[in-house]
Each structure stands twice: as structure tokens, then as C-alpha cells.
């Protein structure tokens, strides 16, 4: 079997596994809708001053600001939890695939494909609900920022899954994206804390806020996000390789 065929088969099997659990699919559709819907419904329309990277200071409605922040956040939350559980199951199921002749790189590519899909679905649902109240100014870049957030946090989840158990891993993946995207990267802050620059959500949140409220999107954060993805991706691949290797 060719390498591409093997990757597609493993990807397809992963998809079938998800399809066998309709509750999970329903949750992937319902939870983003609930999350965005409840915030947009409850938050006030009063305006707040924020810093938009490509456009300086702007006044935006509170509901719109947090709506825009929520999409990369929830892509990060879903990606992170998916990555964590991917790692937890990797040592069992994926080791068997490697034993059956798959190369670890092929298994990793197929699993990475699942993370991409989870991030795209989360972003699509979230953006659909957000667009009832507010449509980001540059939709394609906003979508790219949110999917990147899901991927980056998905890979962080893979790394967390290697170090921590299931319970401690869920705690971590519940807390870190929230603290990172909502608090440390919040654009209502004039001068961000130094630690914010080094967190996984920095570049993607900047890109999401920029594309959410400005037409002149700076491309620096995009490059930074891709660099962050490459670094975390390399670490996660090494971790996944280690978990699936045949002993």
C-alpha cells in the first residue's frame, strides 16, 4: 500500500471512530454554538477601548469584542482536549498500527489531519453563530487564525498528554487556553505582560483581533503563529513518535 493510501486509511478509520460516537459529534456542534451564543446574548453592547494591532485604538461593543476572542479560544479548547485524548489513546491503538507495518510518520500525519478537521469544524460552527451578531472584518484571515489556534493548542494537548495523566491533563487544557487567550492576550489591556508574548495564544489572538476589527491586517503575527506551530509541532511529533514506537 502506498504511503498516501495508508495515511488516508488511518485518517478514515479515525473519522469512522468519531462517527461511531454521535454524542461527540453532536457536542462538537452544540458546545461552540452554546458558548458563543450565551456570551453574545448576555454581554452588554456598551463599548470598550481596545488596541487593534493593524489599526491602533478602537471603540468596540463588549459583546463583539468577546465574540471575536471566543472563536480562537474555543477552537483552542476543543483542539487542546482532542490532542490530549489523542495522545492518551496513541500508546495503545497507534502502537498496534506501527506494529502492523505503518511508519510512525504516517500515523502522526493521519492524527494531525483529525486535529485539523476538529479545528475547522469548531471554527465553522463558532463563526456561524457569531455572524448572527457580528461578522469579522476579514473573514478568511480570521478563520485561518482560529484554525491555527485549534492546531497549536491541539499539539500542546498532545504534549500535555505525554507528561500528565488524563485528570491532570484535562485540568491543564481547561485552564491554560482560557488564561492565555481571554486574560493575557485581552486587547483591552494597553501594555501586555511580558509572559503573554511567549504563550501559544499570542500570535493567533493578535491575528484574530486584527482581522476581526481591521481591514489592514498585519502579517507579522501570521508568521509568528506558523513559527509557533512549527516549534510545537516538532515537539509533539517527537512525543508522538516516542509513544507509538515499537519496543
Amino acid at each position: 500500500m502506498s504511503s498516501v493510501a495508508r495515511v488516508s486509511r488511518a485518517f478514515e478509520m479515525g473519522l469512522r471512530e468519531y462517527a461511531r460516537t454521535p454524542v461527540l459529534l453532536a457536542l462538537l456542534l452544540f458546545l461552540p454554538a452554546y458558548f458563543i451564543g450565551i456570551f453574545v446574548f448576555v454581554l452588554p453592547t456598551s463599548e470598550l477601548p481596545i488596541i487593534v494591532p493593524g489599526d491602533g485604538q478602537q471603540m468596540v461593543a463588549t459583546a463583539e469584542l468577546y465574540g471575536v476572542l471566543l472563536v480562537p479560544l474555543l477552537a483552542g479548547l476543543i483542539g487542546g482536549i482532542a490532542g490530549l485524548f489523542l495522545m492518551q489513546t496513541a500508546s495503545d491503538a497507534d502502537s498496534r498500527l506501527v506494529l502492523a507495518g505503518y511508519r510512525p510518520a504516517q500515523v502522526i500525519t493521519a492524527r494531525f489531519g483529525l486535529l485539523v478537521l476538529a479545528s475547522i469544524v469548531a471554527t465553522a460552527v463558532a463563526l456561524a453563530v457569531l455572524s448572527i451578531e457580528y461578522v469579522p472584518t476579514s473573514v478568511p484571515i480570521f478563520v485561518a487564525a482560529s484554525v491555527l489556534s485549534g492546531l497549536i493548542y491541539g499539539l500542546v494537548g498532545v504534549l500535555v498528554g505525554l507528561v500528565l495523566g488524563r485528570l491532570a491533563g484535562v485540568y491543564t487544557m481547561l485552564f491554560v487556553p482560557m488564561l492565555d487567550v481571554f486574560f493575557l492576550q485581552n486587547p483591552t489591556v494597553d501594555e501586555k505582560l511580558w509572559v503573554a508574548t511567549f504563550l501559544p495564544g499570542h500570535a493567533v489572538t493578535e491575528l484574530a483581533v486584527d482581522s476581526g476589527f481591521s481591514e489592514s491586517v498585519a502579517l507579522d503575527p501570521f508568521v509568528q503563529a506558523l513559527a509557533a506551530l512549527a516549534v510545537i509541532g516538532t515537539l509533539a511529533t517527537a512525543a508522538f513518535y516516542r509513544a507509538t514506537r515499537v519496543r
Partner: protein
Amino acid sequence: MTESGRAGRVRVGVDAAVRSFLREPVQVAVLLVLPLIVIEGYGYAMTAFPELPFMTESAETMGRLNGAIYAVAFLTGVLGLFQIISAQLADERLQLCGYSRGELFVTRLATVVAASVLVAAVSLAVLAWNVTVEAPLLAFGALAAAALVYGLIGMLVGAILPRALEGSLVLVFLVDADDFLSSGMVDIDTAAVELFPLYHPHNLFQSAVDGSLAGGRALATGAYLMVLLSVVGVVYVRLTGNGGVFGE
């Protein structure tokens, strides 16, 4: 069976649950260390926030208060969920050995209550390091109530959706949305926010810290807990031992 016999069985059940938890030292470390990281992390993250007119405390203090509530809620929520999931098979076996569903529920509930008290105590101790708490006993009660509310919600999610990935996703979204909207970081004027599980415990906790002592919040928190306890009790007792299907 006599009352002392029942109490003995519940004690054995709680003992087994606690032992199974203590067998993994990382979990114990997480329970003790995470409140410190969350409370100080939130406080630090909020130092850069502007002081907005509707904020009742400095942004940094609000961050710490919010962190304390968040830490207790998500620690016990996820603990409640995983306890129910991991106990599913054990519960069915215990039922075969003669445990009633009510006894099983009391056993799991007692473990969640114990975890709530422990996490609330740790969180209050961490908070008191940097924030003056005017009414420490009430603050402890509010934190324990917030922990118990989410411990019960975790049990409920675990009983209805006994799968780790799905249950975790539900809890992640519930806690994150609830915590942020109840935090006082944004000026919300919709009454619907009062229905969120953390709204009353959060306000009660804040009043205990600043000394304004909102008695009405204590009543609302107690009522919320009672209703939740009844719902979780009914759902748990109906679902346990039936392979997740409502039964006798």
C-alpha cells in the same frame, strides 16, 4: 440492614474512593498545587487590566477572587466527572454485592464533599496570602459551596454522559463560560446570568472577602445546592447499574 451497617458500607465505599485517588500522587499534587497556580496566575494576568467603573475591587484582587472560585469549581467538577466514570464498573459490582443505589450515591457524594472541603481550604489559604479576607468562615463556606455545585454538576455529567472525552468537553465549556460571566470582569445587566451555577457563590464569596456579607446570596446558594443535589441524586440513582439507561 441496620443503620450502623449502612454507615459502615458507606465508610468502606468512601475509603475505597479516597484510596484509589491517593494511589496516583500526581493527582494529589494537582489538587494541592493547582489552586496556587490558578489564583496567582489570574491575579498576575489581571494586573495589566484597566480599572473599569463597575469593578468593585482592584483588577488584581478581582483576578485572585475569580481564580479562587475557578480553581475550586473546575477541580471538583472534573473530579466528580472522572469519579463517576471510573466507578461505573465498580458500582455495578458493588450493587451485585448488595449495595443499594442510594448507598452508592451517598458514597460518591461523600467523596465529592470531602474533595470540596479540601480544595476550598487550600484555595482560601492561598488567597489569604495576598488578599485580606474580612469573614474567613463565610469565604470558606462560599468556596466550598462553589466546589460542591460543580462537583455535583460533574457527577451529573458523568451519570448522563459516562465518557471521558465527551464529559470533559461539556465541563470545560460549562465552567469556562460560567466563571467568566460570573466574574464581574464585564458589566452584565441581564437577569439570566443569575441562573449560572457560580453566580451566587461568587457574589457570596466576594461579600465575605470585602466584609459586606450578602446574606441573601447565602440563601440563594443553599437553595441552588439543594435543587441540584435532588436532581443529581434522582438521575444518579436511576442510571446506576442499568448500563446508562433509566430504570427502576
